[in-house]
């Protein structure tokens, strides 16, 4: 379990990093926290010719709040963000706690998790759930890509080989928004077999907006549009929540692996959507009172 030979570069600026990516294209791999890449290197599943270590690139590790959104530099460690949220985004805080274990979060970066795009990971799903945006830079300039367009397949994104994720933007839920997050993992800290996140805002006892994301259930994190449509503008009864989850589950395209069948994932996605929505609605109505 030693990596195949590779060249190692450690640029100090984004431009320098982009030069390397431009020069080596598909042959290059970006190293941030290394929590996914390093094992893949050791298993020789990833065999980049050049490893571009961005850990020494300045200016990518800040957390700021601008225009109602958290702007999270790509190198911000998950553990750092967990501490920096400070009550502003309880759903994100809860999701961060489910990533691996503390030791992993101390190394693992927010941008790395997004760029790696594991369909069972929490951060891509949460970014999709809150209508977040990925800011990238290439030699031709910056792009801002909506999460919904960014994740295109398992470990596949809209990022070009010569682009770098430099920031993720997390719109803060409006005050009074309720949240819910449930996942089933074989063990604490494992990737979810399946999970669901929800953000719900109520007005006058009706659902003003509902956002639901499912993860670990198919090629990418998925917004449960059918559930959102079922709920919006309606009074959220237990029966309606159940209908919403059922409608969304029937649209999922879950995968099967060693640990769970596709049927299990679809079934449990429905259960977890129901639970996440119920929590979100109850939190939203709690804060409305």
């Amino acid at each position, binding site marked *: 379990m*030693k990596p*195949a030979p590779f060249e190692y570069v450690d640029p100090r600026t984004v431009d320098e990093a982009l030069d390397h990516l431009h020069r080596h294209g598909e042959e290059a791999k970006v190293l941030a926290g290394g929590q996914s890449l390093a094992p893949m290197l050791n298993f020789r599943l990833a065999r980049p010719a050049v490893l571009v270590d961005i850990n020494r690139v300045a200016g990518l590790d800040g957390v700021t709040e601008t225009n109602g959104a958290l702007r999270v530099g790509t190198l911000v460690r998950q553990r750092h963000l967990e501490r920096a949220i400070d009550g502003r985004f309880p759903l994100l805080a809860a999701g961060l706690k489910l990533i691996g274990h503390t030791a992993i979060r101390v190394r693992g970066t927010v941008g790395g998790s997004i760029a790696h795009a594991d369909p069972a990971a929490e951060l891509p799903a949460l970014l999709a759930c809150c209508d977040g945006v990925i800011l990238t830079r290439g030699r031709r300039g910056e792009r801002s890509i909506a999460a919904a367009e960014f994740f295109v397949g398992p470990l596949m994104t809209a990022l070009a080989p010569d682009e770098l994720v430099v920031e993720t933007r997390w719109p803060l839920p409006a005050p009074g928004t309720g949240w819910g997050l449930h996942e089933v993992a074989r063990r604490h800290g494992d990737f979810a077999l399946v999970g669901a996140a929800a953000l719900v805002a109520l007005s006058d006892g009706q659902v003003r907006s509902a956002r639901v994301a499912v993860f670990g259930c198919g090629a990418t994190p998925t917004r449960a549009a059918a559930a959102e449509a079922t709920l919006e503008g309606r009074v959220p009864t237990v029966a309606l929540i159940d209908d919403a989850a059922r409608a969304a589950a029937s649209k999922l395209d879950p995968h099967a692996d060693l640990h769970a069948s596709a049927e299990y994932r679809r079934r*449990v996605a429905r259960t977890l959507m129901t639970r996440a929505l119920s929590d979100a609605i109850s939190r939203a109505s709690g804060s409305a009172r």
Partner: protein
Amino acid sequence: MGAKYFGAAVRRREDPRFLRGEGRYLDDVKVAGLLHAAFLRAPYAHAAIRAIRTERARSAPGVVAVFTFADLETWMKPLPLFGAPPPGLAAAIAFEIRQAPQFALCRDRARYVGEIVAMVVADSRARAEDAAEAIEVDWEPLPVATDMRQAAEAGAPLVHEAWGTNVGVAFTHAIGNVEAAFAGADVVMSETFHIQRYVGMPLESRGAVAVWDRRDGALTTWNSTQVSHFVQQGLASALGLPHHKVRVIAPDLGGGFGTKASGYPEDHLVPIAAIVLGRPVKWVEDRREHMMSAAHARHQIHAISLAARRDGTILGLRDRIWLDLGAYNVWGIVLPYNTVAHLIGPHRIRNMRVDVQAVTTHKTPNAPYRGAGRPETVFAMDRAVDRLARELKIDPAEIRRRNYIRADELPYDFGMPYRDGNPLVYDSGDFPAALEAALKAADYDEFRRGQAALRARGVYRGIGISGYVEGTAIGPFEGATVKVDLGGRVLVATGAVNSGQGHETSFAQVCADALGVPLEHVTVVGGDTAGVPFGVGTFASRSGVTAGNSIADACHQVRAKLVKAAAALLEAAPGDVDIEDGQAFVRGVPASAVPLARVVQASIPTFAKPGVASPDFEATAYHHVPTVTFASAVHVAQVEVDVGTGHVTLLRYVVAHDCGKVINPLIVDGQVHGGVAQGVGGALYEEMVYDEQGQLLTGSLMDYLVPTAMELPPLETVHLEFPSPRNPLGMKGLGEGGAISPPAAIANAIEDALQPFGVDITATPVSPARLLALIRETA
């Protein structure tokens, strides 16, 4: 001799160095000029080797040598095989046994994914791995046998063609009159239970370092093994060296669990490379190699039937047992007969018939792992007992009360041999008392009272029981040498390797009491063949009893020598001299006390005069145990099942156990906890999975799920002490017990939680996906 240390909760003396990261594990062994080995392993479960081309690898940067079978043919001797039936067992049961030799390198065919095809030695491990990738092999894939029951049938692809079958061990055994028992029963319960392939998974993988001294013709090899004397014997015969020219040292071990008690190709290949190249060679198994090439374990199927009266009294037992050996039958009758000898457990069942087949398949060879047949057989039995209870509408605790052997029935003679060939007779214990103690500690009655109300609220909690009686501390002996040095300090050397269970503490406690010295004056070294001539090793819950009693015996001999010398020094009769706390003194005359250092020094001849006695304060003992001691326990698990996701949460876990006289309750607790953790792994998480082509799908710890501290519930232990009459210290073995009952207790608890659904659990691990499918099938 007082028991100052024996029984005391002495804190583990080895822990400071482990906690500071100063343990010296195999990979910490550094030697000047070290070369590093990597192995090319078979990518097919069954394939013929048509050609191997190594030229590219040989010319790769940093490569010193590449070895295939052809390159090392003169060195290739069959690896050691174990598990022939001892005479007492062979006389009672007709075993059909087939064992095929395995060579350290594939000769012309691979029989499992991971079998070694070639060895590369280079100046770094990374370069050795690069070169291993450059070796080209022309493979001809052959048909594979992966399902143990199909493999046992005629016409299945054969693992060893010369056998004409895949069955490596077969036998039938019966006691009493099982036909009459079944004919006279009110009810017969039958079910087939599957115990998956799961493994020891030590945190530290295997590894070896070998240094060849050409001048002296002597080999020194460090090996992360539980059995350094076995490794020494294997090497001495394979290399044609005198035993005293082969020194095997087991350094600190990060776990063993039986995984490191097998003989392995690398044990031989690393020393052979060091001899051939005249340079030291190191190999440290990486986790990917460990998954496919360290011994696998468990993996049985039991088609079991219980015949009972309506009141729950079990009259008879039939079991047809299959065991998946993997590609080589390394361990003979050990696992299959262990399985049979522990099937009945604490139950009073006088009529039994078993039909056993251990079958080779194209998978990694199977070997004993903590429990070695017992967790499997206890799963079948305790699941069957629960099923019978459900059928008869008797509480699972009550049916056990009615069937457990009472204390006044001990010694209890099965009328059949144990695995060591001696009569299977339970020596001591109180199984009903353990049952009641465990139920009480787990608040069984209170749990039952609350269960229905919780169910009404949609909370599904269950409680499960499992009990076992375990033959522990198999003999025939362990070696121990005790010597006192010039400063009066004591060195204990034993063949028992410390694989993490605290030998440096518990054996020092035994020694300090037996010799009459402070604990701090004792150093314990295990697993260095230079320290004691003959040894066996640490496995089968044996070291406490076998090494412990040998250490006590040797200490008694050394003590007699010290008393004799002190008597001469103090000018007293030996009968009046005592030793306590490192001082020799005339009884009743405290002022006469001299430190042992003084006794030793006075015994050494000077220019002026001979010593007061011969300065021979050394003894070696090989305490012979007559047969095993029977440890026992009852485990109770409490679980909660999320019926929406199939997820199981362990709420509490109670163990009431008897391991005879306890040397150190802290260490006993730790042993129980570690065993339970591995049992929890078997119950809920761990499984080595192969596809139909014999490809291993669980190639990493992302796929093979070992429980962490986060998955474990609070563990409570109740110590019951029933001394064994079979050794002077009254001890019984402990190491494996914790791992035996959790799969059965947890599966019973899950089934109990899901009573309203009528779920039948017949296989482990009980994963959320499997459990939800069962819930939805029955709902």
